[in-house]
């Protein structure tokens, strides 16, 4: 029941009681209530028309970067004696400076401007509503509105710069790039020797081989370098991503996926992204800066989730990836993912697994001593699980899958540089 109805009922009761009892004092008792109600009805707003404009200093920022918000309210309706305003923001965003809510009086055709600074973690945050409560000073008549505005803030994941990621899919695209294409032509890496043809540069003539032949000249052939199709799969299954308090392994996976996508796109590859979570969120493959934006948008919104269907990786929609292309799986991995990875490999995909280490992550975030277990017991348990994981990663590697085991305590770019340099040095055939 609204305040007006409540007061009205009380007034009516007192008036009726006064009439029944024929007592003027009872009727007089209703006068303060009547004055109160009349004040509210007289000064309450009839026409609440507010124009709201919101300006953000930036719409795409890195996590925890302060964003200045400026909200301009213009009153196009009646005088508003008491106006409560709240620029509604997502609860995970924190206001650092200023305030996103105000309580003011606003005359007709007057404006009010307020500013505040907010920051937040990775995510996509729509800023679409300014909550307004307008009324008289006594709050008898109140009009509540949610004024729609258009705005959004994207907090993109941090992107670490990687110098090189050694992938070598079987099939490449026709455009020149940096990935050895297993086809002779122009390039840097030596590929073979063939008979000299008209148009070949004389500098490419292999004089040693030509000297052995009395009739023909032979020229060096180089391996063509082309761009490739890369499909990045981000594992968002809740059972594989650990959550310890406010810390989540998924955030590290997102960072890795963003860095890898950025690296591949920077060198010209065609990159697609699949977030394998409660449902499949697919960003179709594309090139260049626009695709980078699309992927970062998708990653900013990516959330881990539970789904009975996508509990295991067996439902990975491989048809969405071009045949014999490169798949990069960013996942902490669970035991039954092994068979899916083998199947991918068997279908001709080149697979790179970037696996944030859940064992070290959990060990680092566990309390030093719990009520049930001593430190030594926790260490022993971690050692056993780590051995199991190490065994699984070795089995995956033996199947010809490139694996980067990442201790998330280390920055991704440093860990990747070290891991990939080792693979390049070892000359791992992919």
């Amino acid at each position, binding site marked *: 029941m609204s305040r007006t109805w409540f007061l009205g009922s009380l007034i009516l009761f007192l008036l009726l009681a006064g009439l029944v009892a024929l007592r003027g004092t009872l009727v*007089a008792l209703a006068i303060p209530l009547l004055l*109160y109600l009349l004040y509210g009805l007289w000064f309450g707003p009839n026409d609440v028309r507010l124009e709201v404009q919101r300006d953000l200093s930036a719409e795409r920022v890195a996590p925890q970067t302060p964003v200045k918000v400026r909200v301009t309210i213009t009153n196009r309706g009646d005088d508003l004696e008491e106006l409560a305003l*709240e620029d509604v923001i997502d609860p995970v965003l924190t206001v650092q400076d200023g305030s996103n*809510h*105000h*309580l003011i009086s606003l005359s007709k055709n007057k404006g009010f401007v307020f500013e505040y600074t907010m920051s937040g973690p990775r995510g996509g945050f729509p800023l679409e509503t300014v909550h307004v409560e307008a009324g008289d000073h006594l709050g008898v008549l109140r009009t509540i509105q949610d004024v729609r505005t258009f705005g959004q803030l994207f907090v993109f994941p941090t992107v670490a710069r990687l110098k090189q990621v050694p992938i070598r899919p079987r099939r490449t695209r026709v455009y020149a790039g940096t990935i050895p294409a297993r086809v002779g032509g122009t390039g840097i890496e030596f590929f073979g020797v063939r008979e000299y043809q008209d148009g070949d540069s004389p500098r490419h003539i292999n004089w040693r081989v030509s000297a052995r032949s009395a009739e023909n000249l032979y020229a060096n052939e180089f391996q063509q370098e082309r761009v490739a199709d890369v499909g990045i799969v981000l594992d968002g299954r809740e059972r594989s991503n650990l959550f310890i308090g406010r810390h989540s392994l998924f955030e590290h996976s997102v960072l890795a996926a963003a860095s890898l996508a950025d690296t591949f796109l920077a060198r010209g590859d065609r990159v697609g992204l699949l977030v394998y979570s409660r449902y499949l969120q697919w960003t179709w493959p594309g090139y260049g800066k626009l695709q980078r934006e699309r992927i970062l948008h998708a990653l900013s919104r990516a959330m881990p989730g539970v789904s009975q269907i996508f509990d295991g990786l067996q439902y990975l929609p491989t048809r969405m990836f071009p045949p014999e292309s490169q798949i990069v799986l960013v996942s902490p991995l669970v035991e039954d993912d092994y068979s899916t990875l083998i199947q991918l490999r068997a279908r001709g995909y080149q697979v790179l697994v970037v696996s944030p280490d859940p064992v070290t992550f959990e060990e680092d975030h566990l309390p030093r001593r719990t009520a049930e277990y001593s430190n030594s017991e926790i260490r022993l348990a971690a050692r056993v699980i780590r051995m199991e994981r190490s065994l699984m990663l070795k089995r995956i590697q033996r199947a010809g899958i490139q694996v980067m085991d990442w201790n998330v305590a280390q920055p991704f770019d440093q860990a990747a540089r070290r891991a990939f340099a080792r693979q390049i040095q070892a000359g791992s055939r992919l």
Partner: protein
Amino acid sequence: MTLFALIFSIALGIGSLAWGYDQVGLLQFTRWIILFGAVWLFAVWQRWRWFAYMGLVFNFLAAAFGLWFLNFTPGWMFAGAIGGLMAWDLTFFRHRLRFAASDEERRAVETRHLVRISLLAILGFGFASVAMILKLQFNFEWALLSAIVAALGITQIVSWFRRRS
């Protein structure tokens, strides 16, 4: 400031009713009224806003009961009802104050609101005083209470005018 005014209103409303009932020797009723006042103050502490509705109804019913059946002195009953109304109003005003961004903004809104409430209280007490004079019951206690309410109300109004000028 609002909290002080809220507590003062509850004390004024409950105290006036209790005093009125006590004057005619209904001690049992007085005890219940005081107990209700204590519960109301507890509800303010716990921020149970719904209790303010009960408080307002209780104060008005107690005042009406006194005026209807027991033919009490009207002044104390009016004061009890006005106190209840102010307390009810201030409970919700206090909740609306959560929107205020700064102390300055809060003070500005508080001042404007308290001026209006003070005017209402002064009007109500003026009206009750007339009733007391008509019934030849304008005594020292009533004069003292009216003076306190008037002083607090006029202070608010004067400070508001000073801010405006």
